């Protein structure tokens, strides 16, 4: 038994490595971060540097595909919003070298600002999706997805959810000759197929539409879409929901079961189970994608279709085994009550965190104003929203803080400040800052340079230290100060922020002190290294 104990994320990475990718591209984001990290650690010969943001990562992967090599691009679900533009167009350009997009959805919002379902975006782009239910499938499906991508000349999505991405189990790896694909390049495509001027785009879109029938046919015969007809109650489940259903029903289920692991949806299989059953329960983690398709607007006459839409399952949040069991009518016995003395323990700044000092300085510098507005961004510093700081007032999307601050200042608000980390600034803070420079927005931007992407576990940052200062100056910022967020500098830092607020027009303060958590990643240190 030659098995490795792998996270879902790690299994995807190994699947990509064993598929012979030429490169992996990503921007860190929970729960997808460990995919690229695994490749960085176990296969250092494969190009796997962090990209500036998800859009860039996707484009880099697309370029590699064009040039004839397989490419993996991974991100969290909201990252795909950033990459939506190239993502949508790539369905039209298609792929030469296989291109697989691994997306980590976050039902339950463990570490995210929403729980959008990437299957919706895949359908939007009309590309196939593989949705694994366990770690072995994470590996297997990734292998299959690369072949599929090249077979159909389309990008293919692997949809993970947090629970699977961050859960380990045994995975049997099958390293074979596929690995050697990284040594050669496939022939280049016809440039007309990739130059999406209207005349080409119309043609390519018709091609995409034309492929849909074949893709559905693939889904009908996919080993990942399995139908078992038994009783008159049918259960359709997608991805990880399969596990909870199996867990609840035990070894000898009486219900008819359809398990979905490959999209577009296998219409024929679905019709079979619906025809056979009177009642269908749809169990899927994320949005009710399948359920919505089934019920449409008006439902299926004579059939009871149940799931998240009718309240059989909660409309939001992560599925849990007991929730699914209850929905299937099983008794869930909780013999021990929750203990009332337990107090909540929310995440908080690490002891000695530079952000805590920045927040304190920010609080003291703005306490004299009636209603200071403080926009924040995505990163550890967003913990400033929580007690005891409660010092910032928004965290919306990557890079939002500067643009929002500018907008608020145009509404007449004063003072308006925003905080953005060095990595988020590189991700999508530079363009709004450029706009603020050109329009001399009366805002104060604090760039919290801890020289890493801390929230996701200290990945390299694209813009920190002197390079960050150069960047900011290069964008045309004149009023720029550097402070060091330390308790001993508190008074000076407060004064610096106050002075920046008083400055009429745009001011930028860089608060620079490295994250105390920076240390080499040892995530997969026990895994065998892949030789070049």
């Amino acid at each position, binding site marked *: *038994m030659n098995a490795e*104990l792998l*996270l879902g994320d790690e299994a995807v990475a190994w699947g990509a490595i064993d598929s012979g990718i030429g490169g992996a591209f990503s921007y860190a984001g*929970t*729960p997808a971060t460990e995919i690229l990290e695994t490749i960085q650690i176990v296969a250092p010969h494969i190009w796997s540097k962090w990209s500036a943001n998800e859009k860039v990562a996707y484009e880099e992967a697309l370029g590699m595909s064009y040039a004839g090599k397989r490419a993996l691009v991974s991100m969290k679900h909201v990252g795909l919003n950033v990459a939506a533009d190239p993502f949508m167009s790539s369905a039209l350009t298609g792929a030469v070298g296989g291109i697989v997009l691994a997306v980590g959805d976050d039902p339950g919002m*463990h*570490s995210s600002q929403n729980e959008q379902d990437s299957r919706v975006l895949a359908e939007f782009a009309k590309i196939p999706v593989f949705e694994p239910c366990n770690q072995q499938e994470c590996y297997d499906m990734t292998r299959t997805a690369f072949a599929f991508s090249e077979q159909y000349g389309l990008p293919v999505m692997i949809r993970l959810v947090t*629970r*699977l991405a*961050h*859960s*380990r*189990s*045994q995975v049997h790896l099958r390293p074979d000759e596929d690995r050697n694909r990284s040594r050669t390049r496939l022939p280049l495509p016809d440039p007309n197929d990739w130059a999406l001027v209207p005349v080409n785009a119309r043609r390519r879109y018709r091609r995409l539409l034309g492929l849909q029938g074949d893709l559905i046919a693939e889904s009908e015969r996919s080993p990942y879409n399995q139908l078992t007809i038994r009783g008159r109650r049918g259960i359709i489940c997608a991805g*990880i929901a*399969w*596990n*909870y259903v*199996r*867990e*609840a029903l035990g070894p000898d289920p009486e219900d008819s079961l359809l398990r979905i692991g490959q999209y577009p949806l296998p219409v024929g299989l679905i019709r079979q189970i619906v025809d056979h059953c009177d009642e269908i329960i749809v169990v899927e983690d994320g949005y009710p994608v399948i359920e919505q398709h089934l019920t449409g607007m008006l439902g299926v006459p004579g059939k009871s279709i149940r799931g998240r839409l009718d309240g059989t399952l909660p409309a939001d949040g992560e599925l*849990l*085994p*007991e929730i699914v*069991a209850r929905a299937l009518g099983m008794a*869930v*016995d*909780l*013999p*021990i*009550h*929750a*203990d009332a*003395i*337990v*107090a*909540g*323990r*929310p*995440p*908080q*700044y*690490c*002891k*000695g965190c530079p952000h805590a000092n920045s927040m304190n300085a920010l*609080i003291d510098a*703005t*306490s*004299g104003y009636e209603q200071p507005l403080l926009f924040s961004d995505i990163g*550890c510093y967003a913990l400033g929203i929580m*007690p*005891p*700081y*409660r*010092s910032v007032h928004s965290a919306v999307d990557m890079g939002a803080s500067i643009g929002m601050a500018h907008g608020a200042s145009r509404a007449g608000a004063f003072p308006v400040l925003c905080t953005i980390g060095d990595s988020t600034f590189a991700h999508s803070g530079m363009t709004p800052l450029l706009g603020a420079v050109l329009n001399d927005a009366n805002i104060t931007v604090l760039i919290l340079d801890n020289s890493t992407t801390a*929230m*996701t576990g200290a990945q390299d940052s694209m813009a920190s230290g002197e390079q960050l200062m150069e960047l900011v100056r290069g964008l045309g910022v004149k009023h720029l100060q550097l402070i060091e967020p330390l*308790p001993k500098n508190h008074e000076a830092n407060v004064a610096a922020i106050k002075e920046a607020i008083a400055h009429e027009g745009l001011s930028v303060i860089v608060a620079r002190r490295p994250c105390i958590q920076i240390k080499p990643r040892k995530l997969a*240190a*026990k895994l065998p290294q892949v030789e070049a």
Partner: protein
Amino acid sequence: MRHDIIIAGVGGQGILTIARVLSLAAMAKGLHVKQAEVHGMSQRGGAVYSHLRISDREIFSDLIPAGQADMILAIEPLEALRYVSMLREDGTVVASTNAEVNIPDYPAIERVLAHIADFGSHIAIDMEKLARAAGGVLSANIVALGAASLYLGFTIHELQAAVEQLFEAKGEKIVQTNIRALRFGRTAASAYREALERGVHAQHARGWIATLSPEHLAAEDLDFAELDVAVDESRLTGAEAHAFESLLRTAYDEDRRQLYEHEVYRLIELVGAITPPRHAFIAKSSTISEEVLNAYPGDKVVIKLVSTAVVHKSEAGAVQIVPKDLDRVRAEIERMIGRHAPKGPVAGVLVVEFVEHAHGLGSELFVGIRATREFGPVIAAGLGGVQTEYLASKMRPGVAVAKAVAWDIDAEGFLELFKSTAAYDILSGRVRGHDRVVSDGELLRCFRAFISIARQFCVDRGEEGPDINELEVNPFAFVNQHLVPLDGRGSLRPAAKPRPARPEDAAKHLLEPERIALVGVSAKPGSFGRVILGDIIESGFAANRITIIKPDEADFEGIRCVPTLGDLPDPVDLLVITVPAKATPEIIREANASGKVRSGIIISGGAGEAEGSEAIGEEIAAAILEGRTMANGGAAFLGPNCMGVRSRPGRYDTFFVPEDKLPMRRGGEPQPIALVSQSGAFIVSRLSSRTDLDPRFAISIGNQCDLTVSDMVRAVGLRDDISVVGVYLEGFIDLDGADMLNVVAELRGQGKSVVFYKAGRTESGRSAAAGHTAAVAGDYDICQTAMSLAGAFVAQDFREFGEALELAVHLTGRTVGEGRVFALTNAGMEAVAMADSGVRLDAPSQALHCELDTLLTTHGLRGLVSARNPLDLTPAAGEAAYDELVRAALDSDEVDAVIVSCVPLAPSLHSLAADLDHSSSFVQLAAKWRAHSDKAIVTVFDGGPEYDALRAGIRVAGLPVFRSADDAARLLHRWIEQMA
């Protein structure tokens, strides 16, 4: 086989490592494994968990279905309880007792542990301590795994192999530490389980586990014969201490030395001392939410400023009672922060439940602890509220506030002490118009918590963590017989560190040396060294046992000289150093290097006591400390700035006072008194003014750079030829006060007396910013109280000091019983004065009355004198009447002590020098009375110099003599009060 385990902890505790080890072990056995982890945001100090599923069949869900977990394995106790609803009915809880207190509402830790102990199948052990014993605190997670392994169907060897596999890359040392941790965890858990099976209470079982040594833990089989669990209730449990520490660390790591009110509440709540009113901290940049506000009972709340700058909140306008209305509360929060923010650092406000309680004197209690420099941890309790300091300053000591050194008292003892305060009289309803507002049990619980905290945290904790300087609640209010804190404050500051012990016998050698060496003797007449040499020789010390350290000379006025200390032919017991201060460190080093010096007296002044000389003082201290690292501990030194030592048994004297100014007493038996004084002048003036006291030893201790006052008191006090030690002190060196208390108690136990005078009532430490505890239990106050509690007689002034010494000598071997005094006088004014002194003068019983009446008749005093106490004999009484009446009193079993007072001017008395040999003179009677009875007999002869001879004669006869009756009665009264 199937194990569904929830592994829980706080971000950073290494729960995933536990999961990894178990997974590896399971895979090695060919089992299926699923392990769900939490990554990302919640890792940062928040609650983290992992679901681990191991089975011999296929596992579907990555998550364990609720209600089906077999075990919760938690490296933090509260985190164990967080997931109990995941557990099946007979599931097991394995938890560490180490609380991570990084949240504002952490419950009382022992309550948390009690909830865990409610699980039939559970283990709760101090994993951090076990990990430390195994080699590193980071291995607490592997300790947890070892503990859990009892239930998991893996052999220790299977787990050990997995540990080796996982940690291999980190090197052999880490592997071994973790293997030990695994074993220690397993042994401790099985010991714990065994203890519970034997019916031991969970808390006691934990206490017992904590006593197991690494050897015990490494053993395959524990010897349960030793399972004799003695739990010290006066100490915090290990879990409480850990939780407390965790919270202190949080404030400390924020670079803050002041604790906020809510942190004080959390601390005392953690140890289960009290339940504070509902409160919420609102940081200054935010405000209260409607949900939080609605949770408060009643229709108003109290808003209080949270700032390190404001000490007395109500005076600073930093307390406001506001109707429980969201808008008004929010507006008041903003107003209060806005008003105070410009004046100093403001962290936010505390919104506190409005507690309905009584107001006015006696309706509030104050309890505080602090780390004192001299005595270590101290506790104080008394009337609370804003009047605390005022009452403490205006009322007699011990009436407004009870205070004690926490090392020397337990909660029961402190409650007894507290019962003698006015506070207790009022609180317990003994005062008219007051009902009892609090039970003794509640007070006891509170005192026990504060004393335990003081003992463990108001002391130098070195690397272990921050020390508490002060922690107090003022006031506690009373609601339904319970204590409810209404304000609290605390601060952190390094506590005084104990110094290395002085070599044990050094002080003994110093008191009675066989050989003496001197350094610093010059030929210049009148120089210190030369005067001292003369004094030593004249005191009778054999010249051939004296050596002078003097280069280039073989002989100085007949005394042998050697060039250096190394050249001494024999080791000396005492080295007298009179070189200038700046040369002293070198001499000390030389003495230590020679190995030939046991003790030394540093006469040299100018070392530390004056401004600018601190550096030399420090250098001297450093030189002495260097000696402590030597095998023999080096020499011990008295001084610097020691004015001298007079040792009658040692036949030497180094007080450099010319003979004609202070004649030496060389003949006759000295008194069994030793004087130990920080002031040399105090000694020489006592020697001069009270020649009758003639102490066996007089020791000026100087700056106590090395030998301390307690060292010297112990050394002289334990001698058989000393029964009374008089101490004059300006200040103890760090923690020497605590040692002194032990010495006093020890001497007291031997029937000896210590008379103590402490100078320095006004303390610089009492700044306006100091807390209540420092104000009511400052160093001076605590010194007076603690010395008195330990059994010393604390004198109020110099005169009383001398009188008390005299009384103490007389009382050696005598008792004062219940303190029932019978007083006789021949002057009405004295009778009145003695009655006014407060001394207990019970009226004679019928029997004694009759007896006295008979004697009065015999001596023709019937009709003139009535048989009362005090007995006013009138000037008509002669010595014979006195004699018989005194004997009658001494023989009466209703009298413990007798004051014999006599105005010696009455014509019939043999009171002049020439008459003292007369058989009926008081001098003759005194000797007889003394021999007749072992009760205390105090005499008073109030008259001029003509009667000096009478008084001296009575002293020689062995009775104490006073110049005035009120002094005698007052002193006797105070003595009885303090010493009985």
